[in-house]
């Protein structure tokens, strides 16, 4: 299936917004996959959002979902 990847902050410097095709069906599986294809991500703290909701536990991904990859927040 195809999902959309958007990235923010420091992570946007090495992962650009793009569509990718994946086999995996959960956010935990996606993390492993992302860390394989973007090795810089492996050493970093980051959170995912699935369709604009912060991922707080392993969640199922469906075709056409949007996944945001976010480094630690630094507003204010």
């Amino acid at each position, binding site marked *: 299936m195809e999902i959309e990847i958007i990235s923010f902050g420091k992570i946007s410097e090495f992962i650009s917004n793009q569509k990718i095709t994946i086999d995996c069906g959960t956010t935990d599986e996606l993390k492993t996959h992302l860390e394989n294809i973007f090795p810089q991500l492996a050493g970093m703290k980051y959170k995912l959002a699935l369709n604009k909701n912060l991922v707080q536990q392993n969640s199922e991904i469906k075709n056409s979902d949007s996944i945001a990859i976010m*480094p630690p*927040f630094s507003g204010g």
Partner: protein
Amino acid sequence: MSEKKIKNIFVDGPVSPEFIAKSIANHNIKTEIGGHSIFMGQVRKDEIDGKIVSAIDYTAFEDLALNKIHEIREEIFDKYPLSCMHIHHSLGTIKAGEICLFVFTSSKHRKPAIEACNELVERIKSELPIWGKEIFADASHQWKENI
């Protein structure tokens, strides 16, 4: 005074002292208010490894941030007896010395306004998907980290 519609908190560029003055002046018809608490974040000209920060460039995942601050707003209104709550955060390039965050709470007695303001600032910094890129005078940069 819980609000149902999603309010925007983002402003392009710095929060101006005139904007803050207008926001304060708007409250003189709210004569049940006895205390106002304000926090303002200002961009610091930090020196990092010999380089000077000249500005911070803020970006946000706006949809997620606005949903989250809406949730926070409702929780704070439920927790404290507030008359008003106003939150403004800058996006884009904010120069050193300019204001990038303005949090303003008001209540009948002073304590709820003060405590709500402090709690909002902490939650804004830790829970909103906003990122600051520190721009150095030589145009290099590094990503800000909140401590």
